[in-house]
Protein backbone atom coordinates (compact mmCIF):
# COMPACT_ATOMS: atom_id res chain seq x y z
CA UNK A 1 0.00 0.00 0.00
CA UNK A 2 1.35 3.42 -0.96
CA UNK A 3 1.14 6.50 1.26
CA UNK A 4 2.63 9.96 1.11
CA UNK A 5 5.09 10.42 3.99
CA UNK A 6 6.40 13.87 4.84
CA UNK A 7 8.96 14.22 7.60
CA UNK A 8 9.71 17.85 8.46
CA UNK A 9 12.60 16.83 10.69
CA UNK A 10 16.21 17.02 9.46
CA UNK A 11 16.36 16.69 5.70
CA UNK A 12 12.64 17.26 5.17
CA UNK A 13 11.86 13.95 3.46
CA UNK A 14 8.69 14.06 1.39
CA UNK A 15 7.81 11.16 -0.91
CA UNK A 16 5.57 8.18 -1.43
CA UNK A 17 6.48 5.09 0.57
CA UNK A 18 5.10 1.57 0.71
CA UNK A 19 3.65 0.32 4.00
CA UNK A 20 2.01 -2.93 5.04
CA UNK A 21 -1.75 -3.22 5.04
CA UNK A 22 -3.29 -2.55 8.44
CA UNK A 23 -0.38 -0.45 9.69
CA UNK A 24 -1.34 2.06 12.37
CA UNK A 25 0.04 5.56 12.55
CA UNK A 26 1.75 4.68 15.85
CA UNK A 27 3.52 1.71 14.27
CA UNK A 28 4.61 3.79 11.29
CA UNK A 29 6.05 6.44 13.59
CA UNK A 30 7.99 3.83 15.60
CA UNK A 31 9.27 2.28 12.41
CA UNK A 32 10.37 5.54 10.86
CA UNK A 33 11.62 7.26 13.99
CA UNK A 34 12.62 4.49 16.41
CA UNK A 35 14.57 6.78 18.74
CA UNK A 36 11.95 9.50 19.04
CA UNK A 37 8.89 10.04 21.20
CA UNK A 38 5.56 10.64 19.46
CA UNK A 39 4.63 13.43 21.89
CA UNK A 40 7.56 15.48 20.57
CA UNK A 41 5.93 15.62 17.14
CA UNK A 42 2.82 17.01 15.49
CA UNK A 43 1.47 14.07 13.51
CA UNK A 44 -1.25 14.64 10.95
CA UNK A 45 -2.96 12.25 8.55
CA UNK A 46 -4.67 13.92 5.62
CA UNK A 47 -4.07 17.25 7.40
CA UNK A 48 -5.98 16.16 10.52
CA UNK A 49 -4.84 14.96 13.94
CA UNK A 50 -5.71 11.27 14.40
CA UNK A 51 -5.63 8.80 17.31
CA UNK A 52 -2.57 6.57 17.51
CA UNK A 53 -4.69 3.52 16.58
CA UNK A 54 -5.59 5.08 13.23
CA UNK A 55 -5.11 2.49 10.49
CA UNK A 56 -3.44 3.92 7.41
CA UNK A 57 -5.18 3.71 4.07
CA UNK A 58 -3.95 3.84 0.49
CA UNK A 59 -2.86 7.37 -0.56
CA UNK A 60 -3.03 8.75 2.98
CA UNK A 61 -0.88 11.81 3.51
CA UNK A 62 1.13 11.59 6.73
CA UNK A 63 3.10 14.59 8.03
CA UNK A 64 5.44 14.51 11.00
CA UNK A 65 6.72 17.86 12.34
CA UNK A 66 8.87 18.23 15.47
CA UNK A 67 7.35 20.43 18.17
CA UNK A 68 10.81 21.77 18.97
CA UNK A 69 13.00 23.00 16.16
CA UNK A 70 16.08 24.90 17.21
CA UNK A 71 16.77 28.11 15.43
CA UNK A 72 20.33 29.33 15.34
CA UNK A 73 22.25 32.42 14.48
CA UNK A 74 23.97 31.93 11.12
CA UNK A 75 27.71 31.47 11.32
CA UNK A 76 29.51 34.16 9.35
CA UNK A 77 32.01 32.73 6.88
Amino acid at each position, binding site marked *: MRIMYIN*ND*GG*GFADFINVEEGMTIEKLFKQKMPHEEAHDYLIRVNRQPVPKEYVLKENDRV*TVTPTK*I*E*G*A*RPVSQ
Partner: protein
Amino acid sequence: MKKYKKHVRAANMLLQALSGLKKERLRQIQKKMEEFSFKCSEIDKNSHSFNAAVNRGWYLAANKITSRVGRNLNDFSHHLDQFKNFIATDDIKLPTLGDIVAGMLQIEQEYGEIKFDLEAKTISVITDSIALEDISFGAFEIRLFINEIKKLHSESPYKIIALEPNPAGSDDEVTHPHVSHEKLCEGDGFIPIRKAIGQGRLCDLFTIIIQILQTYNPDSPYVALSEWEGTSCYDCGYTVAGDDCYYCENCERDYCSQCSTYCQICDTTICLGCSYECPDCKKPVCRHCTAVCKECDEMLCTDCINEEGLCQSCEEKRKDQNNEEQKEESTEANSGAAVLSDSMGETIVHA
Protein backbone atom coordinates in the same frame (compact mmCIF):
# COMPACT_ATOMS: atom_id res chain seq x y z
CA MET B 1 -16.85 28.68 -3.77
CA LYS B 2 -16.89 32.50 -3.59
CA LYS B 3 -15.70 32.09 -0.02
CA TYR B 4 -12.45 30.61 -1.26
CA LYS B 5 -11.89 33.06 -4.14
CA LYS B 6 -8.91 34.68 -2.44
CA HIS B 7 -7.48 31.29 -1.54
CA VAL B 8 -7.63 30.16 -5.16
CA ARG B 9 -6.12 33.39 -6.48
CA ALA B 10 -3.28 33.25 -3.96
CA ALA B 11 -2.76 29.54 -4.70
CA ASN B 12 -2.48 30.38 -8.40
CA MET B 13 0.13 33.03 -7.67
CA LEU B 14 2.05 30.56 -5.54
CA LEU B 15 1.89 27.95 -8.26
CA GLN B 16 3.30 30.44 -10.77
CA ALA B 17 6.09 31.33 -8.35
CA LEU B 18 6.90 27.64 -7.89
CA SER B 19 7.03 27.19 -11.67
CA GLY B 20 9.50 30.08 -11.73
CA LEU B 21 11.52 28.35 -9.03
CA LYS B 22 11.57 25.14 -11.04
CA LYS B 23 12.72 27.08 -14.10
CA GLU B 24 15.42 28.73 -11.99
CA ARG B 25 16.66 25.31 -10.85
CA LEU B 26 16.81 24.09 -14.47
CA ARG B 27 18.79 27.23 -15.34
CA GLN B 28 21.20 26.47 -12.51
CA ILE B 29 21.63 22.92 -13.81
CA GLN B 30 22.36 24.37 -17.25
CA LYS B 31 24.97 26.73 -15.72
CA LYS B 32 26.62 23.88 -13.82
CA MET B 33 26.66 21.80 -17.00
CA GLU B 34 28.41 24.62 -18.86
CA GLU B 35 31.00 24.96 -16.10
CA PHE B 36 31.57 21.22 -16.19
CA SER B 37 31.84 21.23 -19.95
CA PHE B 38 34.48 24.00 -19.74
CA LYS B 39 36.51 21.89 -17.30
CA CYS B 40 36.31 18.97 -19.75
CA SER B 41 37.52 21.18 -22.61
CA GLU B 42 40.55 22.16 -20.51
CA ILE B 43 41.47 18.47 -20.21
CA ASP B 44 41.10 18.12 -23.95
CA LYS B 45 43.44 21.08 -24.54
CA ASN B 46 46.02 19.63 -22.16
CA SER B 47 45.81 16.30 -23.97
CA HIS B 48 46.68 17.94 -27.32
CA SER B 49 49.59 19.91 -25.85
CA PHE B 50 50.87 16.81 -24.09
CA ASN B 51 50.72 14.78 -27.29
CA ALA B 52 52.64 17.47 -29.20
CA ALA B 53 55.26 17.75 -26.45
CA VAL B 54 55.89 13.97 -26.36
CA ASN B 55 56.09 13.70 -30.16
CA ARG B 56 58.68 16.48 -30.33
CA GLY B 57 60.69 15.13 -27.42
CA TRP B 58 59.99 18.16 -25.22
CA TYR B 59 60.04 16.17 -22.02
CA LEU B 60 60.34 19.17 -19.73
CA ALA B 61 57.17 20.63 -21.25
CA ALA B 62 55.48 17.21 -20.99
CA ASN B 63 56.37 17.07 -17.28
CA LYS B 64 54.94 20.54 -16.73
CA ILE B 65 51.71 19.55 -18.47
CA THR B 66 51.55 16.39 -16.33
CA SER B 67 51.75 18.35 -13.10
CA ARG B 68 49.18 20.87 -14.39
CA VAL B 69 46.84 18.02 -15.28
CA GLY B 70 47.35 16.60 -11.76
CA ARG B 71 46.29 19.89 -10.20
CA ASN B 72 43.36 20.29 -12.59
CA LEU B 73 42.18 16.76 -11.81
CA ASN B 74 41.76 17.72 -8.15
CA ASP B 75 39.60 20.69 -9.20
CA PHE B 76 37.78 18.48 -11.65
CA SER B 77 36.85 15.94 -8.99
CA HIS B 78 35.60 18.77 -6.71
CA HIS B 79 33.43 20.18 -9.52
CA LEU B 80 32.20 16.70 -10.38
CA ASP B 81 31.11 16.08 -6.76
CA GLN B 82 29.36 19.46 -6.63
CA PHE B 83 27.58 18.77 -9.87
CA LYS B 84 26.51 15.29 -8.73
CA ASN B 85 25.20 16.67 -5.42
CA PHE B 86 23.27 19.42 -7.16
CA ILE B 87 21.63 17.01 -9.57
CA ALA B 88 20.87 14.58 -6.73
CA THR B 89 18.91 17.12 -4.65
CA ASP B 90 15.18 16.75 -4.90
CA ASP B 91 13.60 18.03 -8.03
CA ILE B 92 10.84 20.57 -7.45
CA LYS B 93 7.59 18.66 -7.64
CA LEU B 94 4.86 21.15 -8.38
CA PRO B 95 1.77 20.67 -6.23
CA THR B 96 -1.72 20.89 -7.64
CA LEU B 97 -3.87 23.94 -7.09
CA GLY B 98 -6.10 21.78 -4.89
CA ASP B 99 -3.12 20.75 -2.70
CA ILE B 100 -2.21 24.39 -2.10
CA VAL B 101 -5.78 25.41 -1.25
CA ALA B 102 -6.10 22.38 1.06
CA GLY B 103 -2.90 23.54 2.79
CA MET B 104 -4.41 27.00 3.26
CA LEU B 105 -7.57 25.54 4.79
CA GLN B 106 -5.43 23.44 7.12
CA ILE B 107 -3.62 26.62 8.22
CA GLU B 108 -6.97 28.22 9.05
CA GLN B 109 -7.98 25.16 10.99
CA GLU B 110 -4.73 25.03 12.96
CA TYR B 111 -3.78 28.69 13.36
CA GLY B 112 -6.91 30.72 12.69
CA GLU B 113 -7.23 33.29 9.97
CA ILE B 114 -4.90 33.43 6.98
CA LYS B 115 -4.36 36.91 5.53
CA PHE B 116 -3.98 37.53 1.82
CA ASP B 117 -2.68 40.70 0.24
CA LEU B 118 -3.12 39.89 -3.41
CA GLU B 119 -1.70 43.22 -4.61
CA ALA B 120 1.49 42.83 -2.63
CA LYS B 121 1.35 39.08 -3.28
CA THR B 122 1.76 38.05 0.34
CA ILE B 123 0.23 35.36 2.52
CA SER B 124 0.35 35.86 6.30
CA VAL B 125 -0.39 33.89 9.42
CA ILE B 126 -0.53 35.45 12.88
CA THR B 127 0.83 33.35 15.71
CA ASP B 128 -0.47 33.28 19.26
CA SER B 129 1.55 35.27 21.75
CA ILE B 130 4.94 33.57 22.13
CA ALA B 131 6.75 33.32 25.46
CA LEU B 132 10.03 31.58 26.24
CA GLU B 133 11.13 31.02 29.83
CA ASP B 134 8.61 33.58 31.15
CA ILE B 135 9.64 36.30 28.71
CA SER B 136 6.81 37.27 26.40
CA PHE B 137 7.57 38.39 22.85
CA GLY B 138 3.95 38.95 21.81
CA ALA B 139 2.37 37.65 18.62
CA PHE B 140 4.23 37.53 15.31
CA GLU B 141 3.04 37.84 11.75
CA ILE B 142 4.72 35.36 9.42
CA ARG B 143 4.48 37.03 6.02
CA LEU B 144 5.36 35.00 2.94
CA PHE B 145 6.30 37.08 -0.11
CA ILE B 146 5.25 35.05 -3.13
CA ASN B 147 7.39 37.15 -5.49
CA GLU B 148 10.49 36.38 -3.44
CA ILE B 149 10.12 32.59 -3.71
CA LYS B 150 12.32 32.56 -6.80
CA LYS B 151 15.26 33.61 -4.57
CA LEU B 152 14.52 30.77 -2.15
CA HIS B 153 18.05 29.31 -2.20
CA SER B 154 19.79 32.60 -1.49
CA GLU B 155 17.30 34.50 0.69
CA SER B 156 14.32 33.77 2.89
CA PRO B 157 11.10 34.74 1.11
CA TYR B 158 9.30 35.51 4.37
CA LYS B 159 9.53 37.92 7.27
CA ILE B 160 8.76 37.52 10.95
CA ILE B 161 7.09 40.71 12.10
CA ALA B 162 6.62 41.32 15.82
CA LEU B 163 3.13 42.72 16.38
CA GLU B 164 3.59 43.64 20.05
CA PRO B 165 7.38 43.90 20.10
CA ASN B 166 9.37 43.30 23.24
CA PRO B 167 12.83 43.72 21.76
CA ALA B 168 16.07 42.85 23.51
CA GLY B 169 17.40 45.69 25.67
CA SER B 170 20.65 45.61 23.76
CA ASP B 171 19.20 45.64 20.24
CA ASP B 172 15.80 46.92 19.13
CA GLU B 173 15.97 44.84 15.95
CA VAL B 174 16.07 41.56 17.88
CA THR B 175 12.43 40.80 18.64
CA HIS B 176 12.96 37.13 19.53
CA PRO B 177 16.16 35.25 20.46
CA HIS B 178 16.20 33.85 16.90
CA VAL B 179 14.77 36.81 14.96
CA SER B 180 16.76 39.85 13.92
CA HIS B 181 15.70 42.52 11.41
CA GLU B 182 12.54 40.44 10.82
CA LYS B 183 14.63 37.50 9.61
CA LEU B 184 14.37 34.14 11.31
CA CYS B 185 17.55 32.20 11.89
CA GLU B 186 16.22 28.85 10.87
CA GLY B 187 18.92 26.59 12.30
CA ASP B 188 17.64 22.99 12.09
CA GLY B 189 14.64 24.24 10.14
CA PHE B 190 16.68 25.46 7.16
CA ILE B 191 16.23 22.43 4.88
CA PRO B 192 12.63 21.50 5.88
CA ILE B 193 11.55 25.13 5.33
CA ARG B 194 13.05 25.22 1.86
CA LYS B 195 11.52 21.87 0.97
CA ALA B 196 8.11 22.92 2.26
CA ILE B 197 8.19 26.14 0.22
CA GLY B 198 9.57 24.40 -2.87
CA GLN B 199 6.79 21.81 -2.73
CA GLY B 200 4.07 24.35 -1.95
CA ARG B 201 3.34 22.78 1.46
CA LEU B 202 2.14 25.98 3.07
CA CYS B 203 0.84 24.54 6.31
CA ASP B 204 4.10 22.65 6.89
CA LEU B 205 6.03 25.87 6.24
CA PHE B 206 4.08 27.91 8.80
CA THR B 207 4.11 25.01 11.29
CA ILE B 208 7.90 24.67 11.10
CA ILE B 209 8.38 28.42 11.54
CA ILE B 210 6.01 28.51 14.53
CA GLN B 211 7.81 25.55 16.14
CA ILE B 212 11.13 27.39 15.74
CA LEU B 213 9.62 30.51 17.33
CA GLN B 214 8.37 28.40 20.22
CA THR B 215 11.77 26.80 20.82
CA TYR B 216 14.77 28.44 22.45
CA ASN B 217 18.25 27.32 21.45
CA PRO B 218 20.55 28.67 24.20
CA ASP B 219 23.64 27.77 22.17
CA SER B 220 23.06 30.25 19.40
CA PRO B 221 20.62 33.10 20.04
CA TYR B 222 21.05 36.66 18.78
CA VAL B 223 20.48 37.76 22.36
CA ALA B 224 20.30 35.19 25.17
CA LEU B 225 17.15 35.17 27.29
CA SER B 226 19.30 35.75 30.37
CA GLU B 227 20.44 39.05 28.82
CA TRP B 228 17.10 40.06 27.29
CA GLU B 229 16.24 42.83 29.74
CA GLY B 230 19.75 44.25 29.89
CA THR B 231 21.37 47.16 28.12
CA SER B 232 24.23 46.85 25.71
CA CYS B 233 27.46 48.66 26.56
CA TYR B 234 27.97 51.27 23.82
CA ASP B 235 31.69 50.56 23.79
CA CYS B 236 32.18 46.78 24.03
CA GLY B 237 28.64 45.55 23.36
CA TYR B 238 28.47 43.49 26.55
CA THR B 239 24.92 43.30 27.90
CA VAL B 240 24.54 44.56 31.42
CA ALA B 241 21.62 44.45 33.81
CA GLY B 242 20.00 47.79 34.69
CA ASP B 243 21.83 48.17 38.03
CA ASP B 244 25.26 47.52 36.49
CA CYS B 245 24.80 50.01 33.72
CA TYR B 246 26.62 53.35 33.84
CA TYR B 247 25.42 56.43 32.00
CA CYS B 248 28.08 58.76 30.67
CA GLU B 249 26.89 62.29 31.33
CA ASN B 250 29.16 63.65 28.64
CA CYS B 251 28.24 61.54 25.59
CA GLU B 252 24.89 60.46 27.06
CA ARG B 253 25.31 56.73 26.40
CA ASP B 254 25.22 53.56 28.52
CA TYR B 255 28.36 51.64 29.40
CA CYS B 256 29.39 48.57 31.41
CA SER B 257 31.58 48.90 34.50
CA GLN B 258 34.70 48.00 32.51
CA CYS B 259 34.15 50.76 29.97
CA SER B 260 33.21 53.52 32.42
CA THR B 261 34.86 55.44 35.23
CA TYR B 262 34.18 58.61 37.22
CA CYS B 263 35.78 62.01 37.41
CA GLN B 264 38.01 62.02 40.47
CA ILE B 265 37.39 65.69 41.01
CA CYS B 266 33.63 66.16 40.61
CA ASP B 267 32.54 62.44 40.85
CA THR B 268 30.60 62.58 37.55
CA THR B 269 30.21 59.20 35.81
CA ILE B 270 31.93 59.18 32.44
CA CYS B 271 32.94 56.59 29.87
CA LEU B 272 36.59 55.84 29.19
CA GLY B 273 36.33 57.66 25.86
CA CYS B 274 35.16 60.88 27.51
CA SER B 275 37.56 60.67 30.45
CA TYR B 276 40.91 62.44 30.37
CA GLU B 277 43.92 61.17 32.27
CA CYS B 278 45.83 64.06 33.77
CA PRO B 279 49.43 63.66 32.57
CA ASP B 280 50.64 64.94 35.90
CA CYS B 281 48.69 63.09 38.60
CA LYS B 282 47.31 60.33 36.25
CA LYS B 283 43.77 60.73 37.65
CA PRO B 284 40.83 60.30 35.23
CA VAL B 285 38.75 63.45 35.07
CA CYS B 286 35.85 64.80 33.03
CA ARG B 287 36.34 67.56 30.48
CA HIS B 288 34.82 70.12 32.85
CA CYS B 289 37.59 69.44 35.35
CA THR B 290 40.46 70.12 33.00
CA ALA B 291 42.39 73.33 32.34
CA VAL B 292 45.24 74.38 30.08
CA CYS B 293 48.47 75.64 31.57
CA LYS B 294 48.95 79.28 30.53
CA GLU B 295 52.64 78.71 30.07
CA CYS B 296 53.11 75.34 28.31
CA ASP B 297 49.55 74.88 26.95
CA GLU B 298 49.36 71.34 28.34
CA MET B 299 45.95 70.14 29.49
CA LEU B 300 45.81 68.95 33.09
CA CYS B 301 43.22 68.37 35.73
CA THR B 302 42.14 71.47 37.62
CA ASP B 303 43.81 70.07 40.75
CA CYS B 304 47.18 70.23 39.01
CA ILE B 305 46.80 73.84 37.85
CA ASN B 306 47.47 76.58 40.39
CA GLU B 307 45.53 79.79 40.93
CA GLU B 308 47.69 81.59 38.42
CA GLY B 309 46.79 78.99 35.77
CA LEU B 310 50.16 77.23 35.76
CA CYS B 311 51.03 73.57 36.00
CA GLN B 312 53.44 72.40 38.67
CA SER B 313 56.46 72.27 36.41
CA CYS B 314 55.79 75.73 34.94
CA GLU B 315 55.19 77.01 38.43
CA GLU B 316 58.58 75.63 39.49
CA LYS B 317 60.21 77.02 36.39
CA ARG B 318 58.73 80.41 37.12
CA LYS B 319 59.90 80.21 40.72
CA ASP B 320 63.41 79.32 39.55
CA GLN B 321 63.28 82.14 37.06
CA ASN B 322 62.12 84.55 39.72
CA ASN B 323 64.86 83.38 42.04
CA GLU B 324 67.41 83.83 39.27
CA GLU B 325 66.14 87.28 38.54
CA GLN B 326 66.20 88.18 42.18
CA LYS B 327 69.74 86.84 42.47
CA GLU B 328 70.76 88.75 39.40
CA GLU B 329 69.19 91.91 40.69
CA SER B 330 70.90 91.57 44.04
CA THR B 331 74.21 90.78 42.32
CA GLU B 332 73.75 93.78 40.11
CA ALA B 333 72.92 95.90 43.10
CA ASN B 334 75.96 94.59 44.91
CA SER B 335 78.34 95.01 41.97
CA GLY B 336 76.88 98.51 41.24
CA ALA B 337 77.59 99.50 44.79
CA ALA B 338 81.12 98.12 44.47
CA VAL B 339 81.76 100.16 41.35
CA LEU B 340 80.45 103.17 43.01
CA SER B 341 82.58 102.61 46.06
CA ASP B 342 85.76 101.60 44.18
CA SER B 343 85.57 103.60 40.98
CA MET B 344 83.45 106.59 41.51
CA GLY B 345 82.41 108.26 38.28
CA GLU B 346 82.90 105.11 36.03
CA THR B 347 80.01 103.82 33.92
CA ILE B 348 78.88 100.21 34.35
CA VAL B 349 78.49 98.48 30.95
CA HIS B 350 76.64 95.16 30.93
CA ALA B 351 78.08 92.39 28.84
